[in-house]
């Protein structure tokens, strides 16, 4: 009875404070706004190219006005030659979009720089690194993306997991080395994805936050996974404490890696959509080899148990299947801002997983960084670096 009234009082004061805050903000908006000076100066023009579609003889460009003022695309030149265009005849309002069709005889495999000349003479540029006919999003295309996602995500992760019997024979010190290796691998992935995310976000014009989107995605993913872990943890303690912690850790690692693979699939899909995969299968091969090590990471905490095969397969799917989803999103959305956000989610997920693994690195003397684990971490970083070279090769 007493506790309930206290709680009600706390609620009421919280609601009261919120209402007061809302009223103050409203008053400020209504009255305070008028006391501020009008924004002076010329219009601020921002356009983000959300999608380019290359059709033989044409380039279709979807632009979004990400600035505060309307933008009028007056003329467009491609590689320093003005082109006839249709679409975008009217000024594009804030957050509005327009589709511009550029009459330009582009060539397969060539780079192009699109320059949108606005009515005030500002030039907004967009680079197409390698031109290739944009694949049409039909059933065949989606099944191809699913296939690539499977190659890159599920198969290598499951392959890596098949090393589980080997891991069982290497003893607790060996396991710590292996977990260190996993931390190294993941740390490299997190750094790599952060850099990638920042690069991608900057190409999107930055109206939806730019690099801040990567941070937002990372923090949200980290918080969500921590919440999930706490939830799973509180449930598990009711059951048995000992054996399940390994599988719990494996699930968390699988989710983290899965979110990372979502970003990886995204990169592949986006590259495919703009035709960069036409350069070769190097990207797919590189990711595949790299992801084999991710399978090792997933099963590393399971050496003291004998999980059923289905459970292992489930873990593999959890870690690998998001690559398929990522490839589909990447190929069909091809939006820099969304890509940056998803890459950020991957980073946050990995950071959470590293924190999950950290306690298991402790050796008998309760040291976090024994020479063996340091060696493992370094080896993990180097492995990722070396296999990463295959991706760009």
């Amino acid at each position, binding site marked *: 009875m007493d506790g309930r009234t206290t709680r009600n009082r706390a609620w009421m004061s919280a609601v009261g404070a919120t209402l007061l805050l809302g009223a103050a903000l409203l008053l400020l908006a209504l009255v305070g706004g008028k006391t501020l000076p009008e924004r*002076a*100066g*010329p219009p*601020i023009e921002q356009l983000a190219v959300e999608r380019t579609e290359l059709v033989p*003889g044409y380039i279709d460009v979807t632009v979004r006005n990400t600035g505060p003022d309307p933008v*009028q695309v*007056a*003329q467009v*030149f491609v590689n*320093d*030659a*003005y*082109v*006839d*265009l*249709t679409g975008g005849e009217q000024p594009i309002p804030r957050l509005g979009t327009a589709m511009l069709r550029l*009459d*330009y*005889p582009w060539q397969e495999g060539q780079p192009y720089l699109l*320059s949108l*000349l*606005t*009515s*005030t*003479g*500002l*030039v907004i540029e967009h680079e197409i690194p390698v031109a290739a006919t944009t694949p049409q999003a039909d059933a065949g295309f989606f099944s191809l993306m699913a296939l690539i996602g499977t190659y890159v995500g599920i198969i290598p992760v499951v392959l890596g997991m098949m090393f589980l019997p080997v891991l069982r024979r290497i003893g607790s010190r060996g396991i710590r080395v292996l977990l260190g290796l996993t931390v190294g691998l993941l740390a490299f992935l997190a750094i790599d994805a952060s850099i990638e995310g920042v690069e991608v976000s900057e190409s999107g014009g930055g109206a939806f936050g730019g690099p801040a989107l990567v941070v937002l995605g990372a923090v949200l993913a980290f918080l969500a996974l921590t919440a999930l872990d706490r939830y799973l943890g509180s449930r598990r303690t009711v059951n048995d404490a000992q054996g399940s912690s390994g599988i719990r850790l494996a699930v968390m690692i699988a989710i983290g890696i899965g979110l990372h693979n979502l970003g990886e699939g995204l990169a592949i899909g986006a590259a495919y959509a703009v035709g960069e995969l036409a350069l070769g299968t190097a990207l797919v091969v590189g990711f595949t080899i790299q992801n084999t090590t991710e399978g090792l990471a997933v099963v590393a905490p399971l050496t003291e148990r004998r999980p059923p095969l289905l459970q292992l397969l489930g873990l593999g799917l959890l870690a690998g299947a998001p690559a398929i989803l990522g490839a589909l999103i990447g190929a069909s959305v091809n939006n820099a801002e969304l890509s940056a956000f998803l890459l950020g989610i991957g980073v946050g997920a990995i950071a959470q997983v590293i924190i999950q693994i950290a306690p298991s690195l402790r050796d008998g003397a309760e040291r976090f960084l024994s020479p063996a684990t340091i060696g493992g971490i370094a080896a993990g970083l180097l492995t990722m670096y070396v296999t990463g070279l295959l991706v760009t090769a």
Partner: protein
Amino acid sequence: MAESRRQFLLGSALLGTAGAAALGARAASAAPSAAPPATETGGVHSGGHGGGVAGPTFRKGAVVDHAANGFDPTALLRDFDYGRVSRLPDGRVLREWVVAAADLDLEIAPGVRYPAWTFNGRIPGPTLRCQEGDLLRVQFVNTSAHPHTMHFHGIHPAEMDGIPDTGPGVIPSGGSFVYEFDAQPFGVHLYHCHVGPLAEHIARGLYGTFIVDPPAPRPPADEMVMVMHGYNTTFDGEGNQLYAVNGIPFHYMHEPVRVKRGELVRIYLVNALEYDPINTFHLHGNFFDYYPTGTRLEPSEYTDTIMQAQGQRGICEVRFPYPGRYMFHAHKTEFAELGWMGFFEVTD
């Protein structure tokens, strides 16, 4: 880049009143530029060119509002301003002009506005023409919100050079000065503002052609002026987004320069381009005699392509033996595809 550009645009927005005043000044001072309207020459092949493999073009069907700009490149082509002519007591010819600098918001390509600085409200400025030995008086009136000068190429005393700290120095906003000097040497020259930052003062539009005819006139011909130039619309000083001859990119693609078959055509060609070291002129299907700077009466070259660095100029003389449409453009093809191209239409 974006930041400085905005501040700069803010500056010109505040000067809107000055620009309006300048318009009035232009109307008062530029009576000679009242040329025949474009309807006579234009419109025949409007919108017929370009797109895809047929070459560069602006949005098809979109045109610049020449009336709102106050000048039309087709009219500028053959618009020679001989000034007000009178005789001095010693019998010499005296020529007088009034040239006003003004800030104008011009449409330099369909739908693209440009905060220009102009002589007599046009880009390029008026083509001032005289004969060697004339006494020239150019009253420069600065109705722009910025300090400017008129600097003439040619031979004249230092105090008439139109540069800062010499003679009258810079002419402040609202100021005026009469540049007075003898017309020499004969040839095709140019004039432009010479106030820092120099590249911007020129690139904003403050340049024009200055022709001094030889004592014995050149043979009669269909004469025209072509000033090669560009627009750096982003004001970053790195190249130009638009290239043109006589003010509006691609203009003579829509309205070809009309000439007669077999008739002598004389082109006074001036390179007033900023931010690029050279410019070129190439004529299709024909060859021309080229007179560098026009200071000699014998051609130096018989060619279809010539090159001019910044400030260089010369005279091209050509007779078209066949009727039809002949392209002319910068053979620096990047400039051509960014607007510096047009057609001659040769008829009987």
